[in-house]
């Protein structure tokens, strides 16, 4: 068996100057996807972006707002309204079958205390829809 020793250094990824929170990466992806969809439809302007975010995700809506304000200018989404709908975690008990809402920290079954539960909702992270202006 030969062991080859190699060390390589990768330079920083060149994206945005302000890319210091992961919400910036997420918002960058949102804006790119929105732009592609809006352009494909021939839209002149994006009026609203609707996101759905599960509360189990490590996503702060304040940080998303901040990233949007920083990244949207000079894109087709400049001036758009950012609407974020948060989804409460919901699970089903594998023992007794009951469905229940819960917070991020407690997802044992409230009826039988079982820990064998299956998460049904709360990890959403998608662009639901956009509202656009089409040239008349």
């Amino acid at each position: 068996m030969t062991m080859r020793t190699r060390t390589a250094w990768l330079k920083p990824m060149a994206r945005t100057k302000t890319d210091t929170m992961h919400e910036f990466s997420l918002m960058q992806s949102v804006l790119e996807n929105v732009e592609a969809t809006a352009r494909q439809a021939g839209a002149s302007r994006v009026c609203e972006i609707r996101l759905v975010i599960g509360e189990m995700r490590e996503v702060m809506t304040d940080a998303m707002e901040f990233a949007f304000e920083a990244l949207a200018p000079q894109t087709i989404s400049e001036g758009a309204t950012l609407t974020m709908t948060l989804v409460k975690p919901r699970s089903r008990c594998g023992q007794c079958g009951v469905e229940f809402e819960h917070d991020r920290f407690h997802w044992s079954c409230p009826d039988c205390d079982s820990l064998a539960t299956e998460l049904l909702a709360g990890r959403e992270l998608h662009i639901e829809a956009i509202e656009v202006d089409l040239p008349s």
Partner: protein
Amino acid sequence: MRLDMEKPILDLNDRLAAENRALLNGHGIFMLDLLASPGAGKTSLILATIEQLRADYRIAVIEGDIASDVDAQRIKEQGIPAVQINTGGACHLEAQMIRRALDALDLESLDLIVIENVGNLVCPTDFYLGEDLKAMILSVPEGHDKPLKYPGVFQAASAIVLNKVDTLGCFDFDEREFRISVEQINPRAAIFPVSAKTGSGLGLWVQWLADRIAKARTGQE
């Protein structure tokens, strides 16, 4: 006019991660993504783990840091290939960065890649990199209440290594409380109290990892 999208925000990252996964499968390589706070002992645990596994597996390490290459140097000193990714401020690694790191490694001569993610208990949690599993380290000085404060990472981890148990006498760390908190949010997680420094408890963690590698290989065959 309303345009329905239903588009996952992490779609591009997840697709690139799936490509990483396919590339690794092609070479029969197992990839572990290791998450922890700064100073929890990621590099020390990696070095101690490598020491016990290097006779059986050909290993490489991908080091993610905001800046510097001190961690990659520590790995390299042990004769292990290491790729340093400097994120230049970003708080987490993404699939495209891992792809570039994989391109810098000789995949033909590897069985196991360990990713040392950026020291952070929040941001890396939701980013799939193409790994077989995520594991995390919590160190005793950080406190037993961390599962209550950072549930996401404790849920994402298949294994939780409790490091620096040699310092338990110096801190008010309640291991029972810690285990109860973890069980509430991730009952499937395996917990391994270890000291990367003294070597105590490492055997069980290494055996668990070796079992997971063996299972992944069987699954591919």
